[in-house]
């Protein structure tokens, strides 16, 4: 199944989803697709003005361009997701979307989709880390 991960650039979540036999929907894929293009119109990530306009599908014109540009990347992934894992209050180094407003909207859009979603807390101890992996494993295995 296609599993959206949030934060969308979390390598840990990406690895867990892939390890348990699912397809992670992540920033890495969305950005890779752009930078692999022969022509880079808008370095470094090739998010062009057309992308920002496409973001209007997810947020109105009054919403800042940075939010719409981000949603242009992650919105289509959310649209095709069949499940999602969200880490609430993840620290910066774990991965982030760089914008609190986008973060709120990503979570909201996932809720609107009505797909199975696992919310996990960022682990501060070894035991919490083990528990986090167990939770993710059970959720991902349950999707099969």
């Amino acid at each position, binding site marked *: 199944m296609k599993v959206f991960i949030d934060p969308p650039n979390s390598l840990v979540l990406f690895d867990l989803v892939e390890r348990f036999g699912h397809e992670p929907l992540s920033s890495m894929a969305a950005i890779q697709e752009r930078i692999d293009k022969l022509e880079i119109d808008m370095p470094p990530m090739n998010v062009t003005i057309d992308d920002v306009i496409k973001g209007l599908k997810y*947020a*109105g*014109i*009054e919403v800042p361009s940075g939010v719409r540009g981000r949603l242009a990347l992650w919105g289509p992934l959310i649209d095709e997701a069949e499940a999602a894992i969200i880490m609430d209050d993840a620290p910066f180094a774990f991965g982030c979307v760089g914008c609190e*407003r986008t973060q*709120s*909207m990503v*979570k*909201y859009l996932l809720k*609107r989709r009505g797909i199975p979603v696992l919310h996990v807390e960022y682990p501060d101890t070894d035991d919490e880390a083990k528990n986090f992996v167990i939770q993710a494993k059970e959720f991902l295995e349950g999707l099969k």
Partner: protein
Amino acid sequence: MIKIAQLSCGTEYSSVQYEIEKAARSVGAKVVYPDVSAADINAAVERFGFRPRSPQLKLMIARAIQLADGLYDADAVFITTCFRCAEGALVRNELRRFIQENTRLPVVTYSFTERLKASQLLTRMEALVTIVSRKELLAREKQSGITVGLDSGSSTTKAVVMVDNEIVGKDWTPSGDVIQSATYVLENALAEAGIKLSEVEAMGTTGYGRYSLGKHFKAKLVQEELTVNSKGAVWLADRQHGEATIIDIGGMDNKAITVRDGVPDNFTMGGICAGASGRFLEMTSKRLKIEVTELGELADRGDWRNAKMNSYCSVFGIQDLVTSLGDGKSFEDVAAAACHSVAEQVYEQQLQEIDVRHPIIQVGGTSLISGLVTAVGEVLGEKPIVPPNSQYIGAVGGALLSSGFM
């Protein structure tokens, strides 16, 4: 009294709350605030799924849930937040969607600045009140008897004479003096119909000059253009049942209205920027030294991609146009770029605040500019329906609805 539930953030601190209430009072409505228990707010936010940082936005969400659950009685909903607040804009639009999905209440959204005056909200509030208080009238699908509709718009004034559900006379003229322009088109429309003014059984007026015309001609219906135009559009397009989106790119402002069985349930009105209105196309035509009626056909022969024109302002838009012409771009490409620019701005500025429903019906004088209809179709990915006499929607709506007063 019609109760309009206000879901808002920032109005009290922006010096606009009084203006909102004044606008509602002036159309016979009252602004109300759904009661919410402090203990329920967090649960409401959790249920809604969007967790804003601002507590007042959380209160907005909780109030919306009271309405959705039928725990608070209101007739219509006004959702408003500060202009340029990202979080506010996100919540405002999603709450609008939530209310529409969970209730049958008509909704209007608005982002305000401290300059907001009651007059700016008047048409919107009046439309909300009309939708609620004149349900039976708005359900009218056929015109009967001999009636007249007068539409006093910012650019043109239109008159239509209808007899037993058929248009028998019509005329339009550029707007000048409100009464004189209307008298002129009325006389011509009556002459075409072969009907005397004394034989007219009812008259309906709409548009900016509706009050003056209503008083002068003793009209039985004096109504804002959002509901009147909707009725006219679905009658002309023969889409009285089901859903549709009506797009009216006007001379001074634009309207995007979603309707269900011919009755609006959500609408946006924009008019801040002339670059996104018919006025810009008039300016373009003038610069190209052609009539605005020729612009559409010219645009259809061009490709907008060949000429840069994406300014949000008519002044800068004309600068782009002059630059493009200076660079040797063809008139056809420049005309196409002007049409595309208007369509794109209407899409970006306005259509984000409604959920576009199909089919799309494009009306108003600008719907006769084929290049603009093509551009709207390209931007929206669906060719709009342009009904016959599409420039007469307001007058037709006025004639249709006023027959309900006979």
